[in-house]
């Protein structure tokens, strides 16, 4: 009996969470997939009707905008947040005196909710209240910074706010990575008279590849599920110029009573996530086997 318990305790302990995940994650993914193949409107229906919802989705100009925005926002957000985070981390790594305080300051935005970030930036970027009005108040009458109300540029204001929020976090990740590089190698390089920038580009950064991957995964899932920032900053506007797939799905499911359409957009979002995560998992698992 004790032997049986010994052998099976891990399984018994894990079983409840396994079952819960199975039902509430994978079960509901399957449910959403099913509903996305039906003509559900106000309430879910279960008669399968082919890919009608996906046809509607791809015929919708609003979805087009939302999907394009996802790539514009995701690409700029991930790349710029990583570059900024890396630069901040390298600068902080120079043994400066008040590192602790500065690190905390840069990390703080991460402690705010996206709603707060979005609202604060909404006021900063509002042409009549924020930056533009202030600079004009200083006497530069022709200064214009109206990205927030310009449908062509509004998506970039979301990029700005998201980078402000997340680059401190990326900095902390990279700083930990920089510190974990073997000091012996760096010292050896310095003894050989190699300039600092070469030490970074040739030794430290290449040895941080796993950190880049983690940062990329964290940022990309933040980008794909971005919702509250858009709601607080632009409300999807002007028009629907800053819609993202998550806000599109919300509008369809909760404002318009078009559940089938919402389910199909959710499935597409999930496929985008899989496209990013599956190669990562594959490489992780393979490297462990080898």
């Amino acid at each position: 009996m004790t032997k049986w318990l010994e052998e099976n305790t891990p399984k018994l302990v894990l079983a409840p969470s396994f079952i819960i995940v199975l039902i509430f994650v994978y079960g509901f993914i399957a449910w959403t997939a099913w509903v996305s193949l039906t003509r559900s409107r106000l309430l879910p229906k279960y008669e399968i009707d082919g890919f009608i919802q996906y046809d509607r989705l791809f015929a919708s100009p609003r979805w087009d905008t939302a999907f394009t925005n996802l790539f514009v926002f995701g690409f700029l957000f991930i790349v710029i947040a990583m570059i900024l985070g890396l630069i901040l981390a390298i600068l902080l790594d120079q043994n400066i005196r008040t590192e602790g305080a500065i690190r905390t300051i840069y990390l703080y935005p991460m402690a705010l909710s996206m709603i707060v970030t979005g609202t604060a930036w909404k006021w900063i970027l509002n042409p009549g209240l924020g930056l533009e009005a202030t600079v004009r108040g200083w006497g530069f009458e022709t200064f214009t910074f109206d990205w927030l109300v310009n449908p062509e540029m509004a998506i970039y204001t979301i990029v700005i706010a998201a980078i402000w929020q997340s680059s401190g976090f990326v900095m902390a990740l990279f700083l930990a990575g920089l510190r974990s590089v073997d000091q012996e190698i760096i010292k050896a390089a310095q003894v050989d008279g190699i300039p600092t920038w070469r030490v970074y580009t040739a030794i430290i950064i290449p040895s941080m590849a796993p950190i880049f991957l983690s940062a990329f995964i964290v940022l990309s899932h933040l980008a794909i599920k971005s919702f509250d920032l858009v709601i607080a900053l632009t409300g999807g506007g002007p028009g629907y110029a800053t819609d993202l797939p998550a806000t599109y799905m919300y509008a369809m499911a909760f404002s318009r009573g078009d559940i089938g359409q919402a389910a199909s957009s959710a499935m597409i979002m999930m496929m985008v996530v899989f496209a990013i995560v599956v190669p990562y998992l594959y490489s992780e698992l393979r490297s462990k086997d080898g």
Partner: protein
Amino acid sequence: MKTHVMGAVSGLAIVVASAAVAEPQAEVLHYWTSGGEAKSVAVLQEEFAENGGTWTDMPVAGGGGDAAGTALRARVLAGNAPTAAQIKGPAIQEWYEEGVLADISAVAEANNWADVLPASIAGHMQCDGTWCAAPVNVHRVDWIWANAEVLAANGIAMPTTWDEFNAAAEQLQAAGIIPLAHGGQAWQDATVFEAVALGILGPDGFQKAFVELDTDTLTSDEMKAVFDQMRTMRGFVDSNFSGRDWNLATAMVMNGEAAFQIMGDWAKGEFMAAGQVPGEDFLCASTPGEGFLYNVDSFAMFEVDGEEKQQGQALLAELVVGQNFQEVFNLNKGSIPARTDVALDAFDSCAILSAEDMAASNDSGSLLPSYAHGMALRGAQSGAITDVVTAHFNSDMSSDDAVQMLADAIANSL
């Protein structure tokens, strides 16, 4: 024979007794949570309690009813529907088709709803010939509000055609006043759009376009003219309008920063709350053109078990459409009574104008549902139209492209 009578009498006694014992109960899901609205719904609660009922309040704030809709859906799917829920427009019929609404025809017929409600509004309350919802109020959507002082200073009268409006706006712009206070949110764009559409297409055209979704009307030259007028009006809006809430736009009219606002009569509540007097400080008029666009709040009754709840439902329905509640509630809310036989002595001049116009347009067949406020179409269709309207208003899209996009969006939403 004698036993028959006895039987009938005792039977009656049992009915009366059980009616006296069973206390009417109602659990009411609604989204009237802001100041004036909460006060209005408290009136109903009091009246319900006075009639011996027990009211369970279930307010769900947020999202202009989206959150309440989600809560309702969860309750209905779980088989635990509330007694009554605040639902409006074609959503009533949509819920009816799910087979969850109760029949309140007995109350409606006993209280003569068919005679006291305007025909087109009564139509919204009926599902396949039975009554399934009770109307609370009528908001008029096609209002234009103005700052009286600004108009007087510039010698401008309330516009009666869109050309007059454009001329007035250009004059105001030259005088350094923002002609049109507007908030760049999709539903506000849609509100202005439907007022313009009613003016330019006329009541028949509006009916064809936004109720019947007639493709020829949607792609007609008149519809292009509607979009052209929207483009013109985009020029009358200040550059800072994106995302502005409607009440901030109303405040701009109040303090004279802007001259006009096109908004439903909830805007009146803002003026009144600031102590302004209709006709003196601010002016109200219907937007240029004929017709009346209504936004009617209503309670739909759900199929519930238990005599107490069914009695609560009947009592609630009776009170909601009762004269007293219709008067008190609408005085608080700024709307007008849905029934046409309520004395209007206590109402302000804008409300009286609204009630007169409603009666007149009911006679002439131009009493029409607001598409922007979910009265004319189901969510997917009205949403599809709003997407096009807001995309056009916030870009440099041509009106030819806009009508094409409109027709495509409608086809894609069906």
